[in-house]
């Protein structure tokens, strides 16, 4: 092999980046097992000197964890399914039909990606309020369901499917509905799963918008509860918040583990050796 010199510089760099990305997670997990006292004294210490499950037990007493997880899950699932569904349909329409002004519409579509969600929150809030969906998980999910990002990602994925496949089906007189269901969807499976996973975690993580819509504690999602613990009056209980944070990262990581094959493949088709 042509290994002219050992590339130390590159390796050190990679290690630094890895540390920077991973350390916060390690701290989070570590502190969730510390007592309040220990975390005050030595919050940056990696291994807790007296590991305790106390924080998790306290948490379980203070809030209805199960309800909160299912609230969050329900909202994230609705948003994910909605985004994936509309994204797939719109992407297929964009790819296969020709209409006037298509390029302009496409341009505007992509532009909406550059409109911060924060700025459109208020108009959305008004609509949700008029629909009487305040304090309702559906109300949180609805305005997030259409999203240009999904359309773009699926257009990109569809471009990798050879056009000869749809053309061959068209010559054979297969209607678009069947082409979409029988050929496009099965072939996009890895993209659908990985894009869906990303949508799920984004929605799972969403904090600002739910704050606006959900006022009632019973409809709280996990990020709201976490925020409450952080900014609670009378000072933040860090280890308690960290325990909630650990609970909050488990479902997304489970999804990642289950679908890792598809997710890793859709990022790097050749796989990294």
């Amino acid at each position, binding site marked *: 092999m042509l290994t002219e010199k050992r590339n130390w510089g590159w390796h050190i760099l990679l290690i630094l980046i890895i540390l920077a990305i991973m350390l916060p997670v390690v701290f989070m997990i570590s502190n969730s097992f510390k007592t309040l006292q220990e975390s005050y004294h030595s919050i940056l210490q990696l291994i807790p000197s007296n590991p305790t499950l106390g924080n998790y037990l306290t948490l379980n007493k203070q809030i209805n964890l199960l309800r909160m997880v299912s609230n969050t899950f329900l909202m994230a699932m609705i948003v994910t399914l909605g985004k994936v569904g509309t994204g797939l349909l719109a992407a297929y329409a964009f790819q296969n039909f020709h209409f006037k002004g298509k390029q302009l519409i496409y341009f505007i579509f992509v532009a909406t990606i550059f409109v911060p969600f924060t700025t459109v929150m208020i108009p959305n809030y008004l609509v949700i309020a008029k629909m009487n969906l305040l304090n309702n998980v559906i109300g949180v999910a609805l305005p997030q369901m259409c999203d240009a990002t999904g359309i773009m990602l699926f257009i990109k994925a569809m471009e990798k499917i050879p056009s*000869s496949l749809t053309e061959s089906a*068209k010559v054979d*007189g*297969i209607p678009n509905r069947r082409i979409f269901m029988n050929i496009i969807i099965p072939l996009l499976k890895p993209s659908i799963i990985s894009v869906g996973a990303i949508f799920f975690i984004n929605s799972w993580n969403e904090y600002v918008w739910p704050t606006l819509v959900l006022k009632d504690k019973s409809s709280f999602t996990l990020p709201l509860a976490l925020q409450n613990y952080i900014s609670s009056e009378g000072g933040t209980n860090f280890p308690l918040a960290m325990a909630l944070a650990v609970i909050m990262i488990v479902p997304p990581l489970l999804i990642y583990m289950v679908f890792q094959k598809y997710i890793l493949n859709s990022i790097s088709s050749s796989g990294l050796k």
Partner: protein
Amino acid sequence: MENTGFPIELDDMSKSYNKKTNVIDKMDLSVVPGEFLVLLGPSGCGKSTTLRIIAGLEAPTGGKVLIAGQDATQMTSIQRSIAMVFQDYALYPNMTVYQNLEYALRVHKVPKQIREQRLTSILASLNLTNYKDRYPSQLSGGQKQRVALGRGMAKKSRIFLLDEPLSNIDVQLREKARDEIQKLHEQNGQTIIYVTHDQQEAMALGDRIAVINDGKIQMIDTPENLYHNPANLFVAQFVGTPQINVFKVTYFNHQLLDESGAVVANLAPYQTTDLQEDTDYLVGIRPENVSLSEDPTGADFPAEVESVVDYGRYKQLTLKVFDRLEIKAVVTSWDSGVGQTVYAKLSRKELLLFDAQSHERIEANQNSQYELE
């Protein structure tokens, strides 16, 4: 052979993508029912676009396409009765071989029993029975190509379009695949339009070959006529390997003179009233029509042997002539070495002359042939 093919007619058909330049320029073409027509040309010449327009995958921007006498723009895919094989085979990766063949029939609600019957015989005839439950990714190139053929056959269409179907399989398998396509045509009698850039493939398959360049049909004729009586320089150079030798000559006093003034060929014994005195022409001679001898008697000009390549069945020589030009000659046996001077004679019967400007062939008319042996 039952002749069930539809006729196809292109009438002044044009295609442009940018409204300025025509990819296909006012093409007229008439395909006889049951004919095996090959569209031959270099990449980008418009041959694939022509096929796609006939298939209905693209719309012509001018002129008409008639299938079985009807304007094709108004026809559904069922009325067109077209099956098509794509260059990349376009097999559905998520379906097995059997499902690939079955899919269109199932969508069109052909009864299960008829489907099974038809597909079983097609799979058997293509030696694919053992592979029917495999997915395309588990097949070799040659097998994929046969599945694509089979899928086209399953439709029992009147027209079969093939777009470079052999370009993705190994050279060693192509000969066999050609034979299969030929047999398919003999058995089903469909009208076949076959696109290729490979002139050998075209010669082997076509009843007629349409040579296309720059969106225009340069010549449409039988393989034999294409080779021996090309309509213009492009056809002469595109068909035949190694390429025809071409050099510029001046006609003067019954002789063809090289730029250096040397005599290339003396046409004195032949009537040459078609040629203008003191005018430039291009002369073309195929490598197998350059005969070489060590004896100068009766030869046209001397030539120095630069290299000899042994292809087994024949040997190909590169010769330097007039101290300037390189020409190729093909011989079946050659014992002399490299560096030697030999004497070349051009077969008068196979000598082709082209107009120096238009590159059109100057055909010998019946009254005044420049060659008469």
